[in-house]
């Protein structure tokens, strides 16, 4: 799955001479709108929920959805809607910050490896390859086993998992761009490596990384949920989507709403990210001939 998206982004880059600008398709607009909605909901969680997500209300254990609690209540009688909103907040924060951190490190690494080549490339690429061969979840669990669970650690683990993928995409696109004649021209016009990298190579090579990062944000959200589900990510009583899935699993038949709503939130967020990634891919493929 991941290696597939790497080749796909490489092909996007192949047509990097902008010639054609696309009107964005409906799916992208839907993706962007959905994501904006989810982020807004997460930011405005305290205003929207009207309940404290951590307040235990024994009288309403597994209460069915009603006007006051539209998503019902969970095994401890906590309001599911406010838990979903606050959980979304944590999940999005972890997903976005982990991918952002990974991107910030991956871009310079990929640029250096791709542009300078030689031993620098070997050093960077080999080190990143070592990270890449380890199964993602195993890596995260090992790290958490060492440092202890929590959402910051989860974010860090996810960043480490995605760093080599993003760096590799950046390296490939840097390789391609650095062979363009305008880069050779700039070199023979005496521009320094720093100048060439920052003004020619990076702007022309970053596209595929942005696409990849937005797709990975969706995966990161799933990964955070998985870690929290296993009790390795966000720690109770702080609500998290993954944690709620774990809670709801035992009462699936008696109170399905405890499971369904956080699951739905995860699914929506993942779909939104992938639609966004798809739209960016089209927007950044200027010729439109690649597809």
């Amino acid at each position, binding site marked *: 799955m991941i290696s597939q998206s790497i080749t796909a982004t490489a092909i996007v*880059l192949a047509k990097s001479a902008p*010639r054609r600008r696309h009107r964005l398709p409906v799916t992208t607009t839907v993706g962007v709108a959905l994501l904006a909605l989810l982020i807004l909901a997460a930011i405005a969680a305290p205003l929207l929920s009207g309940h404290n997500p951590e307040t235990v209300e024994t009288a309403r254990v597994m209460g069915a959805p009603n006007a006051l609690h539209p998503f019902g209540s969970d095994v401890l009688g906590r309001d599911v809607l406010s838990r979903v909103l606050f959980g979304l907040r944590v999940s999005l924060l972890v997903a976005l910050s982990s991918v952002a951190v990974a991107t910030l490190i991956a871009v310079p690494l990929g640029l250096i490896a791709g542009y300078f080549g030689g031993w620098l490339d070997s050093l960077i690429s080999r080190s990143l390859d070592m990270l890449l061969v380890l199964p993602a979840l195993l890596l995260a669990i090992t790290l958490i086993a060492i440092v202890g669970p929590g959402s910051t650690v989860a974010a860090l683990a996810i960043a480490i998992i995605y760093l080599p993928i993003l760096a590799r995409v950046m390296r490939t696109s840097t390789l391609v761009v650095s062979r363009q004649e305008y880069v050779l021209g700039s070199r023979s016009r005496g521009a320094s490596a720093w100048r060439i990298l920052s003004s020619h190579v990076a702007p022309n090579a970053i596209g595929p990384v942005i696409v990849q990062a937005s797709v990975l944000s969706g995966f990161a959200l799933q990964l955070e949920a998985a870690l929290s589900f296993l009790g390795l990510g966000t720690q109770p009583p702080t609500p998290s989507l993954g944690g709620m899935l774990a809670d709801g699993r035992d009462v699936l038949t008696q109170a399905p709403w405890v499971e369904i709503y956080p699951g739905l939130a995860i699914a929506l967020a993942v779909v939104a990210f992938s639609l966004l990634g798809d739209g960016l891919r089209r927007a950044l493929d200027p010729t439109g001939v690649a597809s």
Partner: protein
Amino acid sequence: MTASLALDGLSVGFPTGALGDPRIVSAVDGVSFTVASGEIFGLVGESGCGKSTLANAIMGLLPTSTIITGSARVHDAEVIGLSDAALRQMRGNTAAMVFQDASTSLDPTWPVGDQIAETIRAHQSVTRSEAKEKALALMTEVGLTDPSERYGDAPHRLSGGMRQRIVIAAALANNPKLLIADEPTTALDVTLQAQILQLIDRLRVAHNTAVLLITHDLGVIAQVCDRVGVMYAGQLVEVAPVAELFANPRHPYTRALLAARPGAQSGAERLAVIPGQVPDLSEEIAGCRFASRCPRRIDACAVTPARVSLGDSEVACWNLPTGGTE
């Protein structure tokens, strides 16, 4: 004789300019001509006169913001305004194009041989190994020595001329009914150029392919074309059978173009150029677009000249010279 490609009043405008000053670059203006099956039609004209834009319009490769009017029919099917999916089906199958920018139309990360094989597999039901076989045969045909060694090379490992030939091989892969070749031999020396032109000619004979050959090289035109269209600043100023065009150029621009050939003036210290500049296509230009540079300008030129037939050729000029020489 069926027309494989028929253009009727095709015009292309690119919106440009600043926010307060929107302009439209009129890159192609009312071009009409037909190319019959089995015919090689050459298109010449000064750099920037809209040749590539015309080709891209036919293949549906212009930005969506572009304003296209008129009609372009490929095998009697209108292509202007076709959906993306329909265009994709047409490209590489019914109609193929050799792009002017050979290196950017190749994927820099893929082996060149695979790129040809992919094109074959996209439109023909063949196995992977059959496609590879065909790709290798095509690579031999375009004059690449030891193709099996070159098959796995990434584009940057090839020289400019080799890359150009890979692009040609990919365009010929599916025996298209219409081939649009935009400056296909610019990077090739005369010997290879002749080989490629023969290859295109063989395709024409074997599959009755219509060929629109865009080039600035009048030598190429002379070698393979049946008829020639001359463009100036977005307009078609002359269409003539090739022998007629060289023996009897009618339009003042065609004459100036023929006179500027380096081969036509060997020994000259300075090469003849056409004085003046191409008009700014984002301005409204009244009348004949060549008028500002034309030695035969008269008052009537302020009105767009109509196209008149003279024997086999058609010319758009108010003040045609009489006789073959001037």
